[in-house]
């Protein structure tokens, strides 16, 4: 049998040492992704260091009116927090549209960001996969890739990042905070996920052995009017085919701030900066919304069987921004 050691600690420094000192040691949070992958043979850590007893599950405020989401706060707790619901409704919606009630009760903030792709070849150890075994090849490119990336992929990997939660977080400029043996650090979520390049197995900028302690979300005025819409192949309990997080601040008929991010389209949550700049500073008209969606998707390179995702992403940006505009009562100037 594949045996592994299990340790639980309530001290961060001990947790860091327990992982640093052991080749193949991993932090265990909710275990909803890691344990599944261990069963499938994709991950085989020699040691699990359970971090659920660390007191990292608080949801607190930052001085500027933003929020600190503790790394081991459960997805359910974050989604239900009145401050999250009031200030960042898209974040709460995104979490609630993911997984199931039972899973969200176990899953944590840190684990959610670090969950691995749902590419079927990645989870089947009898298949090659560059992300799992560097250099072994990517069968998805010529294989079944109906649900794979349309943006930012390379010949080395065309997988998507599965997290819903990360999509609004990236739209709101969230920052990942961590502790490592050589001290604390912080990485903006927009730089957290590495470009695919030729090493898709290198997924994040988190230093080896570092422990995520929290995710901070700055105050974003537009986020109070934000929305997350997730499209998937059935009504619930499926990962996003394409999703959109959008926030809008329109005053005097002019877009003051707009935040747009896409899920299900790339190896990371995709901040739609081109679309944002196309909308910012001008009136919110149908033509401009449409043009903004087009400019973002102009870079899309669909694979043989997933061109529908380009249409879908484009339509979703239009639909969600249009709905938000209707909500703010600012649509009449078009």
């Amino acid at each position, binding site marked *: 049998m594949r045996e592994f050691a299990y340790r639980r600690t309530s001290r961060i420094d001990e947790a860091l040492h327990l992982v640093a000192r052991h080749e193949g040691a991993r932090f265990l949070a909710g275990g909803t992704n890691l344990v599944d992958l261990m069963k499938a043979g994709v991950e085989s850590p020699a040691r699990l260091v359970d971090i659920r007893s660390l007191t990292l599950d608080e949801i607190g405020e930052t001085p500027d009116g933003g929020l600190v989401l503790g790394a081991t706060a459960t997805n359910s707790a974050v989604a239900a927090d009145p401050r999250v619901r009031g200030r960042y409704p898209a974040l709460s919606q995104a979490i609630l549209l993911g997984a199931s009630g039972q899973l969200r009760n176990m899953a944590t903030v840190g684990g959610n960001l670090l969950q691995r792709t749902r590419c079927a070849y990645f989870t089947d150890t009898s298949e090659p996969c560059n992300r799992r075994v560097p250099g072994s090849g990517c069968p998805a490119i010529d294989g*079944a890739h109906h649900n794979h990336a349309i943006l930012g992929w390379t010949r080395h990997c065309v997988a998507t990042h599965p997290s819903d939660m990360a999509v609004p977080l990236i739209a709101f400029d969230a920052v990942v905070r961590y502790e490592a043996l050589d001290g604390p650090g912080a990485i903006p979520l927009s730089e957290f996920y590495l470009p695919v390049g030729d090493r898709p197995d290198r997924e994040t900028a988190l230093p080896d052995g570092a422990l995520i302690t929290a995710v901070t979300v700055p105050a974003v005025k537009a986020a109070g009017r934000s929305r997350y819409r997730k499209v998937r192949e*059935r009504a619930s309990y499926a990962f996003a085919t394409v999703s959109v997080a959008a926030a809008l601040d329109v005053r005097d008929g002019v877009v003051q701030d707009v935040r747009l991010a896409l899920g299900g389209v790339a190896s990371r949550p995709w901040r739609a900066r081109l679309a944002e700049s196309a909308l910012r500073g001008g009136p919110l008209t*149908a033509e401009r919304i449409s043009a903004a969606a087009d400019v973002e998707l102009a870079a899309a390179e669909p694979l043989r069987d997933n061109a529908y995702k380009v249409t879908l992403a484009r339509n979703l940006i239009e639909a969600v921004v249009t709905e938000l505009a209707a909500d703010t009562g600012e649509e009449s100037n078009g």
Partner: protein
Amino acid sequence: MNPDGITAAVGESRPRIEGRLKVTGAARYTADVPVAGLAHGWVVTATVSRGRIRDIDAGEALAQPGVLGVLDHRNARRLNPDAGQYFGPDRSLPLLQDEVVAYAGRPIALVVAETPEQARAAAATVRVTYDAEPHDIEFSLAHPAARPASTLFGPEADTGDLEAELAASALVVDEVYHTPEENHSAMEPHVATAWWQDGHLHALDSDQGPFGISQVMASLFLIDPERAHIRAEHVGGGFGGKTVCGPQLILAAMAAEHFGRPVRVALTRRQVFLATGSRPPTEQRVRIGADADGRFRAVHHHAAFALSPLAEYIEWCTEQARTLYAAPAIRTELTAVPLDLLPPCSMRGPGATPGSFAFESAVDEVAERLGIDPLRLRLLNQPEVGPVSGRPFSSRRLVACLQEGARRFGWAQRDPRPRVRREGDLLVGTGVAAVAFIAGVFPSSATITAETDGTFSVRIGATDIGTGARTALIAVAADALGVGVERIRMHIGDSDLGMAAGAGGSRGTTSCAFAIVETAKALREKLAGATTPVTASVDTTPLINWRPDEDRYTYSAVFAEVTVDVATGEVRVRRLLGMFAVGRVINPLLARSQLIGGMIGGLSMALHEEGVRDPVTGRLVTADFAGYHISAHADVPGIEADFVADYEPQDPSGFNGLGEIGNAGVAAAIANAVWHATGTRHRTLPISLGRVVESVAAQDRPQAVGVA
């Protein structure tokens, strides 16, 4: 009340008698039954679609703790190469006989250990190398290897002058429809525990018919059929996927013999997908010629399905065309395409379900193009007698289903034009489909003993795979014996109980009910004046009318309302109504559950289920529930299933089967509703958003942006 003053049990709604055991976890399914000295087998499956095993290196596995050994083609016992099942010889049955790999997912080794964890870990270290050969899984009706399908179910239809009638038609619809490979996905994965004692094989198996499977096992292991004892007390669903002798049972029996102790083999969900048969993909061309007033002149249904060269199989898609509507010329053709796939296996209304999708979509296209209401078109073309057979129908209450369904659904208010109902971004549409499902009985035998304590022990090799068959048969026995249900002791799920139909082909309950009714009759005659215990047995083989002079079918009309999001292509079903004519209903509560379950299966087929194979390797990519989507609760609307009064004259009690008809018509009704909502016809299942979004959005561009 029957003559003895006992309220009839048939027709009463009663919950499953084992329901409490099941919801409290006390009911023991195959893998729950403890067996002393048990060892555990873990299956290793082939990862190439065609080729030869060069080597299986089990050295590392054999060195692992708890491992008893590894069975493969080099050390496994020989099995009868000519063993077969329902469709005749099945060369896929003898496992571990040689180095040939005929399909990906084929079991090629079994690692046996003291615990399942040890077996699993050891199996992961088995290194298999292959000499791969080019494979072909490229299915199409025009495939060069395509050949006429087996005519075991009777010849295909060819009446009238098809080409002349088509030429004389005011309108000809000629379209091609596709359905994908689909997997049964029963909740309980396939599992078996087997042991040998004094030359007898004993096994607990998750299957749909232990008697039939005991016969296959006896033939495979070349033992006397009386020496194979198979039990399946509680089975967590089958949907056809457990009608055949599964690899879990064959491997468990081989290993039990080899290691001289009981062995359990439980397939993982992935292995169920890879190593047990699925519904094959189909490609179907339907041509319908009609007069301008809607009367059909010609019906031509040519269906092709994939199978394996190892075994015969029939996906009888052409059944609707020969019985649903009258036409002077009807031709059906059924084509089998052998590919490097595992042998398919009957699933949720085999043939009828994919066939109905194609045929009833084509009928709807006739209505669309002639501008005739699709319900009216269906009523207009009803036959007086079997359109191909020329025989009268034993009972045909389809019109009642259509009319009552239309009334309840509010069909009269329907605007026939497509794409005219809109609620924000949602297009709304409704659709209808009719379906016939062939009915009948298989031979079965029953034994009933009148015990001294006044109870009756009924022994029959029936199987309850979650349908409520046990409960239904108790009611049938109670009425046939003229006693209350509390006096019936029902024993089922054991091949030793004698020859009986399995839970398949929508015939399990009717076949077994027939046997019980006849046995009760015999017992009551014997009982007069005799002292108990008294036992009677009847085998219905000689009682079954194999050449009835009437056509026997069950019927259903399905109505669906859907919404389609113009921005995203998401299709959701809002309402689903099924009216059914299924003979006299034994237990309305259970019957309705069965039909609603079937309708959900149909919805799932229409919108979600799709087995996807890698175009390069031929391997199944969607081999788990993350990749193979089944409708979730949120996809399932309120569903209404109800019955029109019906009585089957060919059955002594008026019964008919209703196992699968719930599934059969739903996909077409939903597809027709999607057309009504969007104006676009979807001829490929599932109608997933990727298929819908581009067509629906393209037509909608100007309105989609409602801001300006």
